[in-house]
Structures are given as C-alpha cells and as structure tokens.
C-alpha cells in the first residue's frame, strides 16, 4: 500500500511525521533508544509505538489504526520520556533523538486508567445489548485496566439521537469516543468526505455536512468507517431478525446467495486466524439455519463476466469500427455499489461509462424470482431472496428503486458477513466444526473466475481469462502462467496493464453473431486498469477528466473498498493490510485448486443461456433482467 501518511488527510489531523530514511543502515539513518532500560536501535522517525511493538512491549491504543494516519487524540498510549515534563503519546511520537522511554510507570498507568474512566463516564450504552459486545476496543480496554466501577460517574441520559436513516449504516453517537478514526477513514482513506468533527470543546461530536442524517448526504455506504470504529458507535443496519422471521414462516421459500469474500473471512468471527476459506462449511451451516437453498454468487459473477465482457466488446466495436463517438470508453465496472454511488455523486457526468450490467448480487436476485421460480414452479412472491455480502453498500443496492426487474424487489435482504456469523452463532453452530456441503442446483458450483471477484483485480482477471479465449481462441492457461493474470494482482492502489491481441481465433457462437466480423480486434492492445479504494478512484477519475493515461484505457475495474470486497464494510473487524492480504491468499488458493476457472466454461452458465436467456448475452431478456441504469446525483445536497 502507498504510504498511509501521504494521502489527503483531514487537514486538522495532518500527520506531522518525520520521514524515515530510505536506508536505515546509512550513517544517521538509525538511532538507539532505551525502552524500559533495554537498548534498541530503530530507523530515524520510527514512532515510539512502532519501536515498542517490535520489541514485544504492549501499549494500549485507541485512536491509532494501522490503516490510518495518526491523530494522537485519545492519549491512551502515553509513555514517559525522560526529561519531558509531560507524557508523550507514543503512537505519534517520532524518534529522532536518543531518548529514554518508560512504558509502565505509575504515572503512565494512572493516566491510562483516567482516560478510560473519563471515556466511560460519557459512554451511554450497555455491552450486552451492543452489536460490538466482545469485539469492542473500549470494552477490552476497560477489562485490561481492571475497571470495576464508574470512577467519574456515568451518563444517564442519551445525548444524541440514533441516526438510522441510511439503508446501510447506523450511527449511535452516544457510544462514540471521538477517536476520529471514521473521519480519517472517510476523508483520507476513502476521500468521500462525509464525516468530520463538528463543534468545539465538550460539544464536539462526529457529524455530517449541516448535521444532516446519513441518508441525506453523500455517504456511499462503503462501511469502511464501521470497520475502523473501535466501538459500537457505527454499525450496519441489522436485518437478521427479518430473516429469522422469514425462515420461521413455512409459507416462505428462503434462499441465500453467498458472495466470494465472506467465506474467506467469516472464520475470523469464530476465532480462526485470517486466511481460512470456509466455503463448504458455511453451506452446511446455512442449511442447518434453515435456508431452503444456498447458492453461490460466483455463478452470477460468471454471468457478469459474460454480460459485461460482451458489452465491452460491443462498445469497442462501435467505437473502433463504427467510429461512433457517443460510445463511452473506458467502460467502468459496476459491481461495487459503493463505487457506483461515489461516481454518481462525484463524477455524475461519467455514469454513462458504467457498465449497464448489474452487480452479481442483483443479477442473482433477478434470476431467482424469474428463472428459478419458473423452473421450480414457485410463486415468486413467496421467495425471500437473501444475500450474504462482505459489504454494507449492498444493503443500499438492493433497496435501489430500479432493482425490481423481476416484478418484485429482486433481493430482499443483503446481510453482512458479521450478521451472518451472528446468525450462525445464534443457531448454536460452531462453524469450523461443520462438515462440507455443496451449493444447490440449478446453479451449482461456480468458477474460480467468479470467486476472485472478491479481491481487487479479480473482476479484471476473470474478464481477461474469458475475453482472451473468446477473441484469440488461445487457452488462458497458455497465455498466463497457471492462468494467474499477475499484472492485475496485488494490493497496489492503482494497477495498469496492456494486453496485445495479435490474432483472432475462432470466436465462440455465444457472441459470434453480435458483430459482422471480428478482424478489427487483430493487432489491438487492450488497455486496462484496476483501482481499489475511492481515494485511488478519485486520482484515476481526475486523470481521466484531464485526458491523461487512464482516459485511454478500455476497461477499468473500480472497487470502493481497499483491497476489494474482501476488505468490505461488512467484513469481520478488525481489519488491516495484513489481514486483507491473508484473505486474498485464501481466495487465490481456492481458485488455484479448482477445475473450473473460467466463467464461460461454467456449465450452468451455458445452461442458463440455453434455457432462459435465449437471445444471448446483452440480448433482450438479459437486458431486461440483468442490466440497469444509474442516477445522476451530484454533490450538492442543500
């Protein structure tokens, strides 16, 4: 990842860092300090906290987060530095002199206890009714410091109203400790700019523009703020109760589709180390909970590849052969609802560039209440369609008014990985103990191409695997070693790749009829880019606006969340780059182990086009059910 301190941070919290030397071994590049009477040598500019962590000294923190620039506002991480009259906040103290540090003196311990006591005195909320019970940093700190009573009293009245206006995110400021992690996330990491500290002194609170409700501002529902909130002040809008009721209702046929990322992370909710894939255990758990059928969203991810890939080829044909200037290129992916809303707000003049293909979640929804209902002779009004997603924005997406092409709300409930884990626990199931089971038919198991949608670069890789074969007739595994399209992998914020197409092979029947001939692709260079995190998206969009390198691209994958969906706002907490990398490894490993790794080879996809989407990709039925349109929103809200 890029240096987290280089982004456009909230100005009030610019990290006044001391740059670390490029070569710590050069003269003056390192410095020796004493921590608790032990000498350690660290690169210049290392913070005290970093130095302590490297030496197995635990220092409690709250406002510090691995992904974010530092703030130094909670004062929990204070330590004593010899010669300084006051304590130093270790998280934000860069070492530039041979100082002597003590991390656990009476003064230090007293200060930390006081900070916790003070926070608790204003903390309205009870742990046993709190969504973050057992996974709350404040609660853990209270335990760590042996808090047994409220030293400085306890607030007895709510100070703030709960903001539950958003489809995705709930804000309960009475549990907020003003660590400003959400502010740094929203402004710096995501560059959306919804949240800031409002007011001064004791009146300070986290608010939005004009203190409006979240639904009325430009929040893109990415939920990244939730993932970094140490307390229950921010959380997703829970819908598990509704799902339980549906399951308990015998007249309802309750189905669930599962996205690729939750399975790579849900193990963390059950105490496993990050990086365990739980796909088939999860299937069993879902069935035991009482879902009537369990499907793999990867199936519609495969479908997305066909539809979106076809759309791209059509756009290219119109632009390159027909010289149609109204064609919008580059084409942008549209499967990340956070990204879609970001574009609608910030670059509304570019919504035409979004692929009209729906996201896999919504495609599945549309198919379930049509194709599936018909096939199983079910009354679509009795189908309750659920989706477990790594994402809080998916909740917003399924509530978009345009997402009812089946005649009903296509997806009734989007639930997050965290909510599902809760349901599984509530059902008395310990996930890691489950036996394996497969996905249900008629959609069955899907391809590895659909699976890697969960990682940044995955959509692009899946598309490339198929498009290359479609056009050149060459096998993807022959073009790319192990079928791994390495240039689009990795956690770099913005990736760019070019693929030369030197010959045109036999184009498969599925798409062959779409254009009169395919020779025009010969000699073309496909230029693609992969972007994750909306802060990076902003950079690329500004480049496109200025007519830069990215405006020459043909296809760009955008994901709102850092790391892609596996870092989504509905995933287990905590998150940091290391955890996200482990989840990515789990996904790539699962893909590598699959037979079926290309979307267009998925037999159920072929079947679906044969049986239901009979006029082919981007055909009439596909258009009605699998494609959509977008809303120009703009930034002005008042």
């Amino acid at each position, binding site marked *: 990842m890029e240096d987290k301190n280089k982004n456009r941070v909230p100005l009030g919290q610019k990290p006044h860092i001391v740059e670390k030397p490029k070569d710590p071994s050069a003269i003056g590049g390192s410095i020796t300090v004493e921590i608790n009477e032990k000498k350690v040598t660290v690169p210049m500019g290392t913070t005290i906290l970093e130095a302590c962590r490297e030496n197995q000294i635990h220092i409690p923190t709250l406002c510090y987060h691995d992904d974010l620039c530092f703030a130094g506002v909670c004062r929990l991480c204070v330590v004593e530095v010899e010669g300084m009259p006051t304590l130093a906040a270790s998280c*934000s103290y860069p070492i530039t002199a041979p100082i002597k540090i003590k991390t656990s003196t009476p*003064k230090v311990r007293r*200060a930390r206890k006081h*900070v916790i006591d003070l*926070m608790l005195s204003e903390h309205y909320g009870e742990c046993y009714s709190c969504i973050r019970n057992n996974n709350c940093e404040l609660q853990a700190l209270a335990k760590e410091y042996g808090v047994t009573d409220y030293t*400085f*009293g306890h607030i007895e009245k709510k100070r703030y109203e709960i903001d539950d206006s958003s489809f995705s995110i709930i804000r309960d400021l009475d549990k907020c400790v003003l660590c400003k992690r959400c502010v740094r996330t929203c402004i710096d990491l995501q560059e959306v700019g919804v949240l800031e500290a409002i007011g001064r002194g004791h009146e300070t609170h986290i608010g939005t523009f004009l203190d409006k409700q979240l639904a009325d501002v430009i929040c893109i529902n990415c939920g990244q703020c939730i993932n970094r909130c140490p307390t229950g002040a921010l959380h997703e809008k829970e819908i598990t109760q509704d799902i339980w009721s549906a399951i308990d209702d015998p007249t309802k046929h309750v189905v669930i589709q599962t996205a690729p990322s939750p399975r790579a992370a849900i193990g963390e909710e059950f105490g496993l180390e990050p990086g365990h894939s739980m796909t088939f255990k999860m299937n069993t758990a879902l069935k035991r909970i009482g879902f009537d059928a369990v499907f793999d969203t990867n199936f519609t991810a495969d479908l997305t590849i066909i539809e979106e890939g076809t759309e791209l080829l059509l756009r290219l044909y119109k632009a390159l052969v027909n010289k149609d200037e109204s064609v919008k290129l580059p084409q942008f992916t549209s499967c990340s609802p956070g990204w879609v809303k970001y574009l609608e707000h910030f670059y509304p003049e570019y919504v035409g560039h979004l692929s009209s293909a729906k996201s896999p979640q919504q495609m599945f929804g549309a198919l379930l209440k049509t194709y599936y209902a018909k096939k199983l002779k079910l009354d679509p009004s009795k189908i309750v369609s659920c989706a477990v997603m790594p994402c809080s924005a998916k909740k917003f997406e399924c509530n978009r008014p345009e997402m009812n092409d089946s005649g009903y709300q296509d997806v009734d409930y989007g639930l997050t990985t965290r909510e599902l884990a809760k349901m599984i626990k509530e059902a008395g199931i310990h996930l890691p103990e489950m036996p394996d089971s497969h996905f249900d038919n008629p959609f069955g198991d899907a391809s590895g191409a659909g699976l890697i949608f969960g990682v940044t670069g995955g959509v692009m890789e899946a598309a490339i695997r198929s498009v290359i074969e479609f056009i050149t007739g060459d096998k993807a595994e022959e073009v790319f070693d192990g079928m791994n399209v390495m240039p689009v992998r990795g956690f770099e914020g913005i990736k760019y790749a070019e693929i030369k197409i030197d010959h045109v092979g036999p184009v498969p029947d599925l798409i062959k009829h779409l254009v009169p001939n395919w020779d025009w692709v010969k000699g073309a260079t496909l230029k693609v880019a992969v972007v994750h995190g909306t802060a990076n998206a902003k950079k690329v969009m500004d480049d496109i606006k200025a007519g830069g390198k990215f405006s020459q691209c043909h296809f760009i994958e955008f994901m709102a969340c850092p790391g892609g969906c596996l870092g989504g706002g509905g995933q287990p907490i905590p998150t940091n780059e290391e955890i996200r990398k482990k989840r990515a490894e789990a996904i790539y490993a699962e893909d590598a182990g699959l037979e079926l790794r290309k979307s267009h080879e998925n037999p159920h996809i072929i079947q679906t086009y044969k049986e239901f989407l009979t006029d082919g990709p981007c055909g009439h039925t596909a258009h009605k059910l699998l494609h959509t349109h977008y809303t120009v929103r703009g930034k002005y809200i008042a």
Partner: protein
Amino acid sequence: MMENKIERKGQVLFSGYKYGEGIKKALKLSREDILFELKESKLRGRGGAGFPTSTKWMLTAATIDPDKYLICNADEGEPGTFKDRVLLLEYPAMVFDGMVIGAYTIGAKFGIVYLRGEYKYMLPDLEAHLEKMRKDNYLGEKILGKDGFDFDIEIRLGSGAYVCGEETALIESLEGSRGEARNRPPFPVNRGYMGKPSSVNNVETFANIPFIVLKGGKWYNKLGTEKSTGTKLFSVSGDCEKPGVYELPWGTKVSELLEIVGAKNTKAVQVGGASGICIPKSQFDRMLAYEDLATGGSVKIFNENRNMLEVLKNFMEFFVEESCGQCVPCRIGNVKLLEGTKMLLKGEFTFEYINKLKELGRTMKIASKCGLGQSSPNPFLSILENFKDEVFNQGWRNNGR
C-alpha cells in the same frame, strides 16, 4: 469607547522608542551578533511558556529551508490578559520593528500577525502602520538597501477560539483548519506553517527585541532576576483602584504590585490568568518570575468579598467551552472538574471524590495534548489547596442560609 490613555512609565517598553531605530541598528549587525546579544539578554518568551527566545530563533535560523515564517502571536485570549492590546494599540512600532529584526535574524521571508478576532477594530491602524513601514522601506524588498533581505508582514484574524493562542493550534488555524493542537515533535521551528520552519512569538517578546538590539544584551540582563531578565508587562485587573497595564521588573513581589495598583482587603491573587494559579495572602511575598510565579502577565485581584468557588466555576466553564475537544483528558476532564466545583458549591461532595478529581487534575497536566489541558487544572488544584476552609465549608454555609 476605550481608555488606554494611562500614563505609563517603565524601564524598557514604556521608556520611549523611536520608530525604525532598532531596525537600522540591527541591519548594521550580523545575524550572529544579534543572536549573541539575544542570548546574552536571556530574554524568555512572554506568551506564557517562557521558552528562551534566542534558542527558538537559533533553531529556526539553523534549518536549511529557504522559506521560513515568523509569526506574531496576538491571540491574547487568556482571561485577565490585555497587555498585547495596549502594545498593539499604542506601540505598534516596537512590535513590528521587533518582527523585522527577528526576520532578519532567522532569515524569514514572511511575517504573519495572528490577531484575535476581538481586536479587529485595531486592523485599520495596524494596516496603516504597515503601509508606512513599506513606504519607508522597513518592509518590502531589500529592506534599507540590504541585499537579500526581503520581508513583509500580513495580518490574519482569528475567529473567536482561545485555543488558537497555542502555537500549533494557531498554525492549524492559519492553514484553514479547526484550531486543534498538533502532535509534537516535530516542532514548529522545524515544521510549522505550511510545513515550513516557523517561529511563533508573543507580541511582547517582539516588543522587547528593538531595545535589546539598541542597548545590548548585557544591559537587559541586569534588569529583573537571574533567571527572569528584563521587565514584564502585567495586566492588572479585579479589585484594585488602578487596574491597567504596568511595566515592572521581573522579581517584583506580589505585595509590591498590590501596593502599586492600590489593592485593599485582598484575599487572593490569580497569577497567569484562568490557567494560572491562585495564591492566598500568606504567599503574597512570592516573586513574579519564571522561577517562582511564572505568568504571561495576568494578575487578577480578589478582595475579601469574593467567593473563590464562584471564581473557580467561571474558570472551569471557560475551559469546558474553549477546549478544542480533540483529546480525552481535556475534553472530558474539564467537565468533571467543573462538576466537582458545583458539588463543592452545593456542599454535596465527599472528600474521597474530590481527591479523585485532584488526581485527575494531575493526570490532565501531564497527559493532555496541549498546554490548554495541561494548565486548566491549575486553578482547581490551587484554589482547593490554598482556600481549603472557604472551599470545603461553603456548601453547608450556603445551604444553611
């Protein structure tokens, strides 16, 4: 509507100064010479913290960045402090000349005066003075023909936030942000306004500079005490006959000052404004000096009729409102101290809890992020310590009434 026209006498600042003289002399000296004189003078910052000015300037001068800023802190927000008002209104030449000399010394190209919003009415006069300086080539390019010495001063206004007097909060405010103090290190002398080396100094500090340049560091350090050289402007208010600004040498005893300003029946003196400490009669022979009672200049006098808890309540309300609110000890701690004060007023307290609050106060002093939270417990701690009888027996007296 204001009455500043009080006859003033003093050994330095109120001894008379001719506009431009200090600059003329300074430009004949080398930067090292000026730093030497400054070091010799042992001048310490007049904004409250008392950091040696020569050290601050030397550190700024030593940075290699060609763009340096010299910032004059005219945010004077400490309740009970108004000496900078008098300096800026009546003696702007001393302050601005001091800035020009400072810029020459540290190699700053840009000068900024951060003037508190409450003093906006001074703006036309100050701007006029700067214009005059530009005309006389005391500002602008090649000042007084000195090659490579370009410097100008811009006045920026505050918007009503006490914490913006804290130097890093001030810089944040100048940069267009909320006035929230920064983490240190790095210090402003290395990375200040716009990330450039910046020296922030108080109005009165600057006003002293021309005199030191003109008369020498040796002359200056003879005034005052060993560790607190020179004179100090004291903003005297409260229960006395002649409130106002007085120039007195450091080391003056509180009792002497009370005599001069005509204070009678004095019960308590708050030294250093709301964030200072409150002393009782028994300590009136203490010295006003960095080594004893350090102060940015505020001396507030309370006579026998004043209720010290009411005074304390007013102070704590001030801090609850003026804390920037970013760090926990200060944002919530001050509220707890205010609550404690109210308990004492009502007589509904336990000693156990009050002792916990004192502990908390001591934590705030070392764990808060900036000087505001580090000093806001001072009045609480000192009034509870020095006025025990009054403070702890007041509640039942009030209730008994």
